């Protein structure tokens, strides 16, 4: 094995010196919740926890130096692949032998045959294809040189960070002033005509909010101008009314954040655009942590107005029968310009691991902290047979976090029905029914006439988006 995968070859493969440096930084165990190899070491794979909610999946075939990584990097190989190769040379004991999971087998079945894919690995290879100057020793040297920083420099950096934070706080508050003035203008003009002027008007203000370092609000505003046209015409006025009300509430909450409970304060700051880094979240001892078996209920992908692809992975945990299962939402953002991207998980997949929730009055968004080897199939949880209770839970969450966008409802004993010619609803036996997103009508047709089902829905107060359902003929997943 190591006859083929040598440090020299890794250096030849590296696209540049920076990639090797980045790979070296990635070699700490915390970055790799999972590292495995085939029993004959013909294949290495692992999951690297990047900055996103979901880990990147890396596969390396040491024999022919074939590789695959799910990260959006445009460097080939990326730092994750280089890190796996490097670790295999230096610390082969970190790779647990095991059976390859589905995603590895899938890659194997689809990859080009060895003879035609092996990159140029000969020491005497074409000089033009050699990467000049990429050296592992240089990367190690660089790492040593950037070792412990001097305390004065650290203090200066802290002061600088504090000053930038204060400047940003002032900037966000100025942005809120502009947002409030704009809302008052809309009220004076009348919300009845909002849909017609929404796109231009909201875009201008959104640009200013980005300048004011409140990108969360900017995005929310731009989404509003798009969402207006996603609902039936007769509902547009109410949607605008509620969304502008939520923005007004956010402005008020942000100004008074010191009077809010810590969880809600964290909510309002994140809503405005302050980022909690993954490392900060994982280091937060107060953060809600749930270790469990999880089912990937749905994977959704949507391009936001800010040209980022938002990739959502909805996880549902295997709660005991009759209890409400916990739902966690992993969100990744990938630049649209980096090409097509999708969740590294596939809907229906089961996994086992610890999920850490962002501090919130209504915890939903989370990070996957650790992940064990692929679990066997996880049984679908049987939530209470009561849609009414689920709706009450939504209302409670809405009361705790007034600008709540969506909230997962889980209940069993439901049916999908059609009301009128086009509207599908999720109905409970006793009469309560929730309208489902019309964009899903085509995919949901096969659920008509099946019943009763156990369903997980993302509910926004007007429409539900069915994420997954357990039915008599198998599981249905949104993907």
């Amino acid at each position: 094995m190591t006859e083929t995968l040598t440090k020299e070859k890794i250096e030849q493969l590296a696209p540049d010196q920076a990639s090797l440096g980045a790979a070296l930084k990635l070699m700490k165990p915390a970055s790799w919740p999972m590292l495995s190899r085939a029993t004959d070491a013909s294949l290495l794979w692992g999951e690297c926890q990047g900055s996103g909610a979901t880990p990147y999946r890396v596969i390396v075939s040491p024999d022919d130096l074939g590789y695959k990584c799910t990260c959006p990097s445009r460097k080939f190989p990326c730092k994750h692949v280089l890190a796996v190769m490097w670790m295999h040379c230096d610390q082969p004991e970190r790779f647990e032998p095991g059976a390859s999971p589905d995603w590895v087998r899938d890659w194997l079945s689809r990859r080009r045959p060895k003879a035609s894919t092996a990159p140029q690995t000969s020491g005497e290879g074409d000089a033009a294809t050699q990467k000049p100057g990429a050296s592992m020793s240089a990367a190690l040297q660089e790492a040593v040189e950037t070792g412990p920083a001097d305390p004065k420099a650290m203090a200066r950096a802290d002061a600088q960070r504090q000053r930038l934070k204060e400047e940003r706080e002032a900037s966000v508050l100025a942005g809120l002033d502009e947002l409030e003035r704009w809302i008052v203008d809309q009220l004076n003009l009348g919300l009845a005509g909002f849909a017609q002027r929404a796109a231009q008007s909201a875009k201008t203000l959104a640009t200013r909010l980005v300048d004011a370092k409140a990108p969360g609000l900017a995005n929310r505003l731009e989404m509003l101008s798009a969402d207006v046209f996603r609902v039936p015409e007769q509902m547009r006025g109410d949607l605008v009314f509620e969304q502008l009300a939520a923005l007004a509430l956010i402005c008020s909450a942000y100004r008074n954040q010191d009077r809010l409970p810590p969880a809600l304060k964290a909510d309002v700051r994140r809503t405005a655009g302050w980022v909690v880094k993954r490392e900060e979240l994982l280091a937060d001892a107060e953060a809600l942590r749930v270790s469990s078996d999880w089912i990937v209920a749905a994977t959704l992908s949507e391009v936001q107005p800010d040209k980022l692809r938002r990739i959502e992975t909805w996880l549902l945990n295997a709660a005991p029968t009759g209890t409400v299962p916990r739902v966690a939402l992993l969100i990744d953002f990938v630049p649209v310009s980096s090409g097509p991207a999708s969740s590294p998980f596939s809907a229906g997949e089961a996994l086992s691991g610890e999920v850490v929730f962002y501090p919130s009055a209504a915890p939903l968004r989370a990070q996957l902290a650790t992940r064990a080897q692929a679990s066997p199939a996880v049984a679908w949880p049987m939530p209470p047979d009561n849609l009414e209770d689920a709706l009450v839970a939504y209302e409670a969450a809405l009361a705790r976090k007034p600008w709540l966008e969506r909230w997962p409802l889980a209940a069993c004993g439901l049916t999908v029905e059609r009301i009128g010619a086009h509207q599908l609803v999720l109905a409970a036996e006793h009469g309560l029914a929730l309208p489902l997103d019309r964009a899903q009508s085509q995919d949901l047709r096969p659920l008509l006439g099946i019943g009763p089902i156990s369903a997980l829905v993302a509910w926004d107060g007007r429409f539900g988006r069915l994420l997954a359902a357990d039915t008599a003929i198998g599981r249905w997943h949104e993907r």
Partner: protein
Amino acid sequence: MRSDISSHDLARVKQGMFLGLARQPLAVPDPLQALVSAAPREPSLTVLALAGQRQRFQRPAIERRADNTPEAARRLHQDPRPLLPEAARRILSRLANGVEKALADTVVCAAVRRVVRAGFRPHPFDLPRLIGHIRNDARCLGLAERAYLALAETDVTGKPDAPSLLHAEITAQNWTEFPKAHRVAFLRARRREDRAAALALLQSVFKSEPAAVRADLLAALDVGLGADDLPFLEGLAAERAESVRGIASRLTASVPGTSAYAVRLAEAARCFARNDSSVSTLLKRAGLTNPANVVFTPPKRANLMEQRAALAILFERFSVTEIAAAASLAVSDVIGALPADEETVLTTFSNRAVLDGDEETMVQLVMHRLSHSDGVRFSVGPVMAWLGENLTQPLSPESSNALLRSVAWQATLQRFKEATTPAAMRDDGTLVWTAAVLPAELLASFQELLAPLLATTTRSARDFAEFVRTLETT
């Protein structure tokens, strides 16, 4: 807060904000007066925030009937066929998602026909993605698929469920309730089983059908056309619709047993003759004639276009068997005499073989093309697609081996191996359709044959092969 603002107050606030506060000044509801006075900001913002939040607690009002399940939805799940097993289902989804767009409809149809032949039905949850590919192929549409189409149709038109949904299968009693494509396919199948009964069935409904349906149903009589169809066809000379008259007259001219037919058959048969001349011997020595020494001599015309037109008229609807009998030759001799690039006669024979359900002749015709074509410029994909579309059973092992060894197939394989551009690497259908027609026992060796090729070239073929093998083992 929910109890603080009444519905009436909420409606008044909304009305003012919808019309515009510049036009209708804000009337702050009494329960909010104190809050508004205490807030250090624009009163309309406070009222908006609280009233908007109040509205978010209103639940949607849905009026439900006692039973909201459409009949089509019930039928969708009453189809008695078992669901496609999960392992095969996953591969079918992968195939449908990964196959080249240009090939998707036909390839997915072929896969679904395999599902149907194996006694299963596609999983209903997969129908939203599959239905677009299979909706026009009656062979893929069982009760569940028709029910799904009816559900989709109702979504678009708002019309109630189609009556054909009440029937698990099409029969002579209910066939008029089915869509046109199903009826035509049913009538053709009946003609193969019992020509007279099919004619009687058609006659019983003919007058009550609209012209477009009459034309298509009438065209289905081309299967097993015979002298006993003549009275009906001749009776259509007075038909009002020109399209129907045209089809009737074409069919009349093709009825075997008439003098015109006999003259045409004799003339067509004369194009094939044994040739023992010295020239032929020389050609034979040079390997340029078939072993039986039968040559094809088409009628002379001024140019290629005219010659093709003349051949199309001369050979219209003739089967290779009829020509062979008339020329006192074996079927294989007639096929072997045709140049591989002789499109017109080969196409005529092929079409007739499909109408007659004569799969042996279909295979012979394809093998002739593949074995005698100039592999460099011959496009195997469309030929394989045609074969895959029309075969109801996989090829025999002997035919399969002959196919894989044929000049044209091997040349195509070589082209894929040497491909350097994305367009050249793309499977034109040759590989995936080969996977579709091979018997399951040869698919493993076929997959090995694909191993040296790029994964992008062979993805669909490998998926199809794996799908069939999985299906066979369940």
